[in-house]
């Protein structure tokens, strides 16, 4: 008990280690202490409870925090995807004509000159056009 008294004195002098402070708290938690030291009971049992609560809270917090972070990340992710899709839908389905410009790619090189683009489009359409003769051959194919 003299030891406890000495530890408490050291505690108030700010000279105790963590292990010594734990010993003091254990002494108060476990049972009887001299009457003259009972006056310190609320202080050390209160600290003990506070320490326990802090330890449990410390264990639980990261998990809750992790869950919170995951949920937040998921929300940001889903929000990003939704925004991207919404933008895509607006650009391709709602805005008249979209935002894309006409172009021609010749041998892998892209050109956007309207005259060239139209000329190449007409040329392609000309390639698939048909004449009376072709129509006639189609209806009355020549014998090989």
């Amino acid at each position, binding site marked *: 008990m003299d030891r406890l008294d000495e530890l408490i004195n050291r505690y108030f002098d700010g000279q105790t280690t963590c292990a010594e402070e734990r010993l003091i708290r254990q002494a108060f938690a476990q049972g009887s202490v001299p009457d003259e030291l009972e006056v310190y009971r609320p202080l050390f049992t209160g600290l003990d409870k506070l320490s326990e609560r802090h330890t449990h809270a410390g264990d639980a917090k990261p998990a809750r925090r992790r869950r919170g972070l995951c*949920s937040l990340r*998921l*929300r940001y992710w*889903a*929000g990003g*995807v*939704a925004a991207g*899709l*919404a933008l*895509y*839908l607006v650009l391709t*389905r*709602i805005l008249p*004509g*979209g935002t*894309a*410009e*006409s*172009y*021609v*790619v*010749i*041998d*892998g090189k892209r050109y956007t000159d*309207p005259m060239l*683009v*139209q000329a*190449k*489009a007409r*040329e*392609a*359409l*000309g*390639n*698939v*056009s*048909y*004449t*009376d003769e072709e129509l006639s051959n*189609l209806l009355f194919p020549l014998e090989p």
Partner: protein
Amino acid sequence: MKLNDLKLIGFVLLACLSLSLRAQEGLEIARVFTKYGNAKGVTQVELNGEILASYRMDTYRSLVFEDVTPYAREIEGCLEDAVRSSQVRKRQLVNQSGILQSAYLQLADVRRKGRKLQRYLLFKRGGKKKATLIYIEGRLSEKELMDMLYKKP
């Protein structure tokens, strides 16, 4: 999970479904356009915006192959695939000595932005090894397209 989260996830799923359906209405031949559009000896044209309005088209894409030989098998396979699919309403195929010379396919209508659009897929071999492949989507009727393609003597 909160109601807002559920709403958000629901929206994302619906949007994904919409995109998936949009992709499914395409044909195998669409792959040819993206695959060979930048190849050497190939001229690709894509029209967008006001140019199309005068032709009553919404989409125009064409590929002109200077020498179609390396691509012919794949193109013919894709066209045959289109013909076999339920997406073709009318077809006009010309084969010569087992080689596809021309194909005029009218595909099933498609609805975009609340409008019903006609779709056409045209393929024709030209002189020597040249060939042209065109995909058209728009309000132009079959007659309008044929009039446009008719070459007066």
